[in-house]
């Protein structure tokens, strides 16, 4: 049965497995589906910069006013503070989990009361910069926050890109693991 956000209960957490080829498309498909279901989305990206995501979402007809982005790569790549954007926070380095943790906490506070789903893109992109042990701790930290606030969450990861021990650990933090074979509804 295809994965659908309609099936997603409040406060439900998913580990969503996709291939590197599919990852940007899955990101957009998931965002569209989530927003269509009345959720606002917090995207933590360590793969694509805000500008690229924005273009991709707009191209897919996704309203940006429902989207908040925590961009961990733009400032790092530019080596300077980017132009301020209303619905985006930039942190200095995708490996700086303290800054990312603080930013996530603040963003959660800002959207309190809204119907929120977090999209984490992606575990593997973050693995370039930090160890699996630290990323596991970070995912645990974020999932705990989500559960406390009653938010939902989807953590994107790449198939065959995780050591089985790390994968098993991550599965213990979520309610369900969704394989990309379980096709999402096509983009409109």
């Amino acid at each position, binding site marked *: 049965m295809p994965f659908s956000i309609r099936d997603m209960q409040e406060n439900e957490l998913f580990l969503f497995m996709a291939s*590197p*080829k599919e*990852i*940007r498309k899955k990101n957009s498909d998931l965002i569209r589906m989530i927003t269509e279901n009345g959720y606002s989305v917090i995207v933590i990206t360590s*793969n*694509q*910069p805000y*500008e*690229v995501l924005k*273009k991709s979402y707009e191209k897919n007809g996704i309203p940006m006013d429902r989207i908040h982005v925590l961009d961990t*790569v*733009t400032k*790092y*790549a*530019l080596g300077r503070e980017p132009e301020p954007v209303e619905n985006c926070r930039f942190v200095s380095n995708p*490996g700086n989990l303290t800054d990312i943790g603080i930013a996530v906490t603040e963003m959660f506070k800002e959207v309190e009361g809204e119907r929120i789903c977090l999209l984490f893109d*992606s575990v*593997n*992109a973050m*693995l*370039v*910069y930090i*160890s*699996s042990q630290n990323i596991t701790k970070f995912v645990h930290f974020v999932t705990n926050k989500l559960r406390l606030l009653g938010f939902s969450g989807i953590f994107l990861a*790449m198939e*065959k*890109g*995780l*050591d089985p*021990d*790390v994968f098993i650990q991550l599965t213990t933090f979520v309610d369900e693991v969704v394989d990309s074979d379980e096709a999402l509804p096509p983009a409109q």
Partner: protein
Amino acid sequence: MDTGMSRETRDEPVEKGQEHAIDPDVKSRFLEDVIMNAKLWMTFMDSKGVVQIWNGAAEEITGYASGDVVGRNEVWRWLYPDPLYRAKVTGTIVERIRDRHSLENYETLVRTKSGETRRISWNTRGLSNPDGTMTGYILLGNDITEIAQVKAALKEREELYRNVVDTQKEFICRFRPDGTHLFVNDAYCRYFGMGRDEILGHRFRPDIPEEDREAVREFFAGLTPENPLGTIEHRIRMPGGAIRWQQWSEQAIFGPDGTLVEYQSVGRDITNLKNAEAAARESNERAIIFIKEAAMRLKTPVELVMENIGLLLEDLEEGDVDLQQLLLRLSIQVKSMEQIQVNLRDLNRAIVDQVDGLSPGSRRFLTE
């Protein structure tokens, strides 16, 4: 064997009181024959040391013929050429005979005619007149050279064996099934910090931690007459409480009826070996974890970068990317590649640390 006696003579009973007195001539010839052909060196010398009787064994042992020595006393100088040694031997014999009339098992070294040294054990008696004047000495010499050599060799071997057993680091012990120890070497005593007397004859049982006891019990129960040998590794708790590892090679010794008599054990402390094995295992496990981690941080990130560059090219073809965005997207992929390179170096370092036998060139290639 035919003795030359007739059947009648042999079978004829001789009644008590019918014995005839032995012909003194026969008796004399018999005694002379016995003396001369005895395997024992038999000599009679007078009080001045002049040899009166020198039997065949004396000739055979010393190499000096009866004709060379009888009626003379020079033979003693030949046999004991060292004047000091000769004086000591003579003094001992004279003194003992004077005090006790006999000397038993007195050992001397004699030089034979061929120059060989032989060890003789002497039994000597003095003969004296009723007035107490010494008339001569009966000397019976037993050539114990070979026996002494065998004894010396045996003693030497025993000392060597004892030396080997006591100086080696391995612990050696023998004990009965009830734990009563029959033998322990120095290493065993030193290891347990106990005296030999405290262990021997006592039911000494080293303190084996509870978790190893069942395995030890099973091991000993598994030694049978068909399979009496085995090796076991287990821990023991030392008197100070420290836990040490030991390895024992056990041999169960069974009696002819198959009853277990005792165990012979050779053991050694393998704590350092066990610690080294554990460290190697731990190091190996750490290396595997590190290599898996490094692989995880290389494999998909490279695919991800390639995919992102592919997407960038597609967007460029579609004219969907301005210069600023192009620079940003390329910069991100360059940063990722830089980090992937760092991760690759970390992986190489882990490989270099773990793999023995890499040439300096290979090590440099992997780490620089």
